[in-house]
């Protein structure tokens, strides 16, 4: 069984820790507690191509990605860039952030995820897709659990394959 490191990053308050908790422990807390430093968790993901031990690093949110210690991104096989669909400030710098992340680790796969899907309508999401200059891989809701399992499972399939 392979082991891979995946990073959850993005601005503060976008729901990275909620996605982490929902995926690893199938829990959700409405209360907001800011992450200090980094939190590491593990989950075994079964795919048709084989099993994967996914080590997930939930990094404290920063307004810009160049504020995160560079070493956190080293040796990672995948980065999940999370933004909040209800707060434009969390996806305003998305191009610069992704450019920066690619410059640190050229080989890593980056997925862009819009979280808090439960708070907006499909029309709002369609409008948001027009505003964002880059493709969004998935919209999730850590609160309802929608697309959370799919997000990590799809990532695992790509990494195992």
């Amino acid at each position, binding site marked *: 069984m392979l*082991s891979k*490191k995946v990073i959850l990053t993005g601005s503060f308050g976008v729901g990275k820790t909620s996605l982490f908790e929902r995926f690893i422990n199938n829990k959700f807390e409405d209360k907001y507690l800011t992450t200090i*430093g980094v939190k590491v968790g593990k989950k075994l993901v079964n795919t048709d191509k084989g099993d994967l031990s996914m080590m997930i690093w939930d990094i404290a949110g920063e307004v810009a990605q160049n504020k995160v210690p560079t070493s956190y991104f080293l040796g990672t096989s995948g980065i999940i860039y999370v933004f909040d669909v209800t707060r434009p400030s969390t996806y305003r710098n998305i191009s610069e952030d992704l450019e920066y992340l690619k410059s640190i680790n050229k080989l890593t796969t980056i997925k862009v995820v819009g979280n808090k899907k439960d708070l907006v309508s499909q029309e709002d999401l369609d409008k948001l897709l027009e505003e964002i200059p880059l493709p969004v891989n998935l919209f999730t809701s850590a609160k309802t659990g929608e697309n959370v399992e799919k997000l990590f499972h799809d990532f695992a399939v790509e990494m195992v394959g």
Partner: protein
Amino acid sequence: MNSSSSSPSPEEEAQLLEQLRQALLSEDRKAVAAIRAMLEDEAQLSEKVSPIIRQHLAFIKENFEGEYGIIIEEIVTRKLADSQDEIVNMIFPKLNTIIKKFITAQFQMLKEGIDTQIKTVQNRFSPKNIFNRFFGPSDSDIILSQLDSPEVHEIYLVQRESGLLLGSYAKEKNTDQDVIAGMLTAIKSFAEDAFNRGKEDLEMIQYENYKIFLQNLPSYYFAVAMTGSISTSEKENLSNKLITFAEDNVPFDTTDVNSTLTDRISSALSKHFDQFNIQQ
């Protein structure tokens, strides 16, 4: 008889009232004047009041605990409970110094006691002792170091950048070692980034009685959790052992971390470190 007496004028009425007051209040007025005179004369006042105050003070002295003890105790208890943090902050530095002094004194006494015992029991003229007397550590130092000897509890071999676990050894497995390896790497990365020390590595993490010794190598590092005091020579001994282990057991390319690799390294770690004694 003339019954038609005329009513008094206001002046007459006031005069009559004053006469009445004089008749009725003269005694009281004298008493008030005497009290006022006494209050204004310090000596007289003291003569009257002092015995009463003395009597009350004596009473308070004698019955203080019974009369006020419970109330004061309640106030103090409440105050202490409300300001525990302040009290701890105030007391801790002093207490810390006292404890340190006490421990130092106890260690000194222990060392002296051991020295005395050794001197009486051992043959002081053996070649080994003669050599040690001049060139080696003192007997007390040897015995003290044995009392607090370092003991390895867990070893982690971790991929340097990703924090993925390459192998581990633990006397008692009770935690998720993959998560520990990840967290150790995060702490290490944070410390190295925060202090911006270029290529310098974090080498030791210490908490209470536990130490985590970090042996850094180009693409991975060892984290050794241990208790006890470790001297420079013991650290060197451990370091050499870890490097030799890596040369013999860790493949050159560890890019792909999988369970076959981690099982093989973990098994080798158990074989090499189960009976390992840092002091030898």
